[in-house]
């Protein structure tokens, strides 16, 4: 195994650790003969021995053959060959990534501070971590970063627009221009001279690196992207996949050896939690940074479970690759995947408190010992305290499960980060703690999905059902405690409750949370007190409440907003800005009465935006609509606007796949000819125009959803914000008189 070390003297060292991975197989003697025949033909040293090992949840061990491969590079091809030739044998430990297994085996983790004993030839004699992945006080390792971006204004360089290269290092920025040979040579000089540890790019996976490599090849020029000369650059093809109920596009990957390539535009982790969060995830999950940056969070939580299993000496069954089914979406789970939802009482309410169970699902798994092997165990069948509420399952009272053991330290570490964050005096430190706790939050969030996911190694549907059954019972217990104390339940979603009680103040909500925590054994906290909060109605039916769609003004002045345009990635910037301004205006009102007084000014904001649109002043940036393609662009049957934009890009030679995003502008949304309806942003040059009424409609809808519960109707909104009406002040006065502010 090649291990790259950063010495205290600043040297970057390539070390080789003689690591011997093992796999196991269970098979009748006849098949074993065949296995031995195959192994004798292997080109590297192989060791075998008969051992007994446990499977997860098994009462008795099974006899298995342990195969150790003395050349890690051949491990994968050898095991694949065995699997193909012996379909009737059961295989274990064959498909866990070797770097991960190396980390488990040596009790190391990515970017660990460690002590090594190394020979002059670079052979590792010993390596030992000097810190634990559960430490919270580690610093950022002294890694050097070179940033590469295309100098391109387009939202996605793959969709068009030519560019030169922007390079940043130590806060210094330079532009690499000139012909291809110049650019490659100057970049290569930089790479050799600066020898950065991290290559941080924009669009490196899909655009920059593939193009740079092709250019260097064609010109036969060297380009030292890899630090390790012995290795080629890792490449993965682009593909689409389902995650959390949506189709997502993965732009492929270009991974380096001896250096890390991270692409800001191809990394969920970097976007959500920054570099500090990515490092945190890599440390606790033991998935290396390049992989962690590009994979789903589920790979991380799976790796943690695999490590627990390896530590316990359990066999890890071989898993056939199957596509993920439509399941386990964060949003789905919050509405109909077993969690309980109380539809909100539509309208604006004053002095509301929100209580949230912290990390509810993982906490339930830990508190009630829910794991695939503990649910419906044999030993606790008749123990009434082991019963799961509502459903017939029970969980083990004697043995702590694999999942709870894996999650408990995560929950604990996140709680410590939250305390550190609250105590931090430096804003920069607070940001880092926040990124790290967010990284752990994501691992905890997905841990639940992996309990019932058929592709998960340690998933089982009964375990999944038990968690949701507990969650429903806990939410109802919380509601019952609150109602007994005279609170009214305005809204509740799975693990959060919005409550109101005339005259209740912070200490009342704190003591309510305390009582619920004592009653349920699960920690619940006060997320915040709202001066006012508006639960917004459905746009289709104004009488219908919509869960998780609200705007609230906290007592400390911040707002919490869910489900409306400002939070949606597909709303044009212009609409988001208008909504943000209206909200800002509304937030000047501290009470419901004051909130109503803000309505005329809010209407005036909308009028300004409508006039801006009408006068043709809106820019491409303000109007661009970003949509994700839910199918392969060729598979669309209807002429949706995003499909038309996709067709335009395809015609220009852009490659698109399901899950990719397209950016377009509505030019004439109702035009008879589909290609007149929209224009792709990347294709806009020279003359263009936009569909005023289509954007005007979006604007009015975004305003109406906020103002409707305050008594503003679609008609009154349209009339009172008419940009062609010059009698501004008159119209507002008369509007104020005619609108009925219902209480």
């Amino acid at each position, binding site marked *: 195994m090649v291990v790259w070390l950063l010495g205290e003297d600043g040297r970057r060292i390539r070390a080789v650790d003689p690591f011997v991975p093992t796999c196991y197989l269970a098979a009748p003697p006849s098949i074993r003969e065949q296995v031995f025949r195959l192994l004798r033909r292997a080109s590297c040293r192989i060791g075998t021995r008969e051992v007994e090992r446990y499977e997860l949840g098994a009462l008795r061990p099974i006899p298995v053959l342990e195969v150790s491969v003395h050349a890690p590079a051949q491990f994968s091809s050898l095991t694949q060959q065995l699997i193909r030739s012996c379909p009737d044998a059961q295989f274990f430990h064959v498909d866990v990534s070797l770097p991960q297994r190396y980390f488990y085996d040596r009790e190391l983790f990515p970017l660990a501070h460690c002590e090594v004993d190394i020979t002059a030839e670079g052979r590792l004699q010993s390596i030992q971590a000097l810190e634990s992945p559960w430490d919270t006080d580690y610093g950022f390792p002294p890694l050097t970063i070179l940033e590469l971006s295309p100098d391109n204004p387009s939202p996605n360089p793959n969709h068009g627009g030519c560019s030169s290269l922007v390079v940043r290092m130590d806060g210094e920025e330079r532009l690499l221009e000139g012909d291809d040979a110049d650019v490659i040579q100057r970049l290569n000089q930089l790479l050799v001279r600066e020898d950065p540890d991290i290559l941080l790019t924009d669009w490196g996976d899909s655009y920059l690196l593939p193009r740079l490599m092709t250019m260097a090849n064609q010109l036969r020029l060297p380009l030292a992207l890899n630090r390790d000369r012995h290795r080629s650059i890792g490449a993965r093809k682009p593909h689409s996949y389902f995650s959390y109920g949506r189709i997502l596009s993965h732009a492929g990957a270009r991974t380096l050896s001896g250096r890390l390539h991270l692409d800001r535009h191809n990394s969920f982790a970097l976007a959500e939690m920054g570099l500090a969060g990515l490092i945190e995830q890599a440390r606790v999950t033991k998935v290396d940074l390049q992989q962690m940056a590009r994979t789903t969070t589920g790979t991380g939580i799976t790796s943690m479970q695999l490590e627990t299993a390896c530590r316990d000496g359990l066999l890890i069954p071989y898993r056939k690759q199957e596509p993920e089914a439509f399941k386990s979406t964060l949003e789905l789970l919050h509405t109909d995947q077993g969690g*309980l939802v*109380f539809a909100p009482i539509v309208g604006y309410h004053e002095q509301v408190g929100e209580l949230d169970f912290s990390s509810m699902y993982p906490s339930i798994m830990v508190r009630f010992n829910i794991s695939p092997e503990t649910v419906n165990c044999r030993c606790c069948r008749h123990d009434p305290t082991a019963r799961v509420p*509502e459903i017939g399952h029970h969980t083990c009272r004697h043995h702590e499960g694999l999942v709870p053991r894996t999650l408990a330290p995560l929950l604990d570490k996140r709680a410590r980060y939250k305390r550190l964050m609250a105590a931090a005096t430096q804003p920069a430190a607070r940001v880092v703690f926040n990124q790290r706790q967010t990284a752990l939050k994501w691992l905890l969030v997905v841990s639940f999905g992996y309990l019932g996911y058929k592709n998960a190694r340690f998933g089982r549907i009964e375990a999944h059902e038990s968690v949701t059954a507990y969650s429903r019972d806990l939410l*109802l217990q919380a*509601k019952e405690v609150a*109602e007994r104390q005279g609170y*009214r*339940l305005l809204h509740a979603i799975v693990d959060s409750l919005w409550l109101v009680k005339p005259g209740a103040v912070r200490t009342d909500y704190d003591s309510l949370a305390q009582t619920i925590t004592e009653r349920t054994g699960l920690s619940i906290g006060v997320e915040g007190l709202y001066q006012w909060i508006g639960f917004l109605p459905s746009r289709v039916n104004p009488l219908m409440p919509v869960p998780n769609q609200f705007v609230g003004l906290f007592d400390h002045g911040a707002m919490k907003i869910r489900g409306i345009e400002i939070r949606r990635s597909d709303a044009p910037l212009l609409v988001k800005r208008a909504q943000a301004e209206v909200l800002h205006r509304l937030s000047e009102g501290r009470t419901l009465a004051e909130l109503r007084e803000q309505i005329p000014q809010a209407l005036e904001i909308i009028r300004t935006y409508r006039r801006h649109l009408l006068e043709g002043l809106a820019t491409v940036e303000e109007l661009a609509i970003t949509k994700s393609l839910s199918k392969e662009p060729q598979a669309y049957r209807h002429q949706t606007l995003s499909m038309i934009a996709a067709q335009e890009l395809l015609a220009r030679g852009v490659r698109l796949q399901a899950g990719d995003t397209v950016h377009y502008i509505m030019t004439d949304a109702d035009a008879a000819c589909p290609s007149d309806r929209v224009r792709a942003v990347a294709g806009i040059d020279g003359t263009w125009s936009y569909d005023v009424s289509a954007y005007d409609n979006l604007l009015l809808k975004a305003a109406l959803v906020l103002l409707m519960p305050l008594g503003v109707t679609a008609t009154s909104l349209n009339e009172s914000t008419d940009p062609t009406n010059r009698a501004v002040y008159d119209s507002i006065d008369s509007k104020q008189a005619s609108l009925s502010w219902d209480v």
Partner: protein
Amino acid sequence: MGRTLATFTQLVQQEIDSWSRYRRALRREDQQVLDVLFAAARHHASAGAYLARETPFEVMLLSMLIEQQKHVVILQQKVMTLETRMPHDSTQGMAS
């Protein structure tokens, strides 16, 4: 003396029990309304027992409706009394 058949009051109780999870998942104000409805069903237990229908829940629903209808009639009368007491001109907008 044991009974072969449950009394109608017992049937109402069984019905209430069968709705207990539904009731638990209602807000308190709605729970109170549900309780009033089942109280109406219990109120007409003797008529229900006399009918002895196979599907007692229908009888309970009708009993709930009877009590609702009685409230509607009482409220209509109250509105009429109030309207006649008020001066004529200010009631114009309310009549429709």
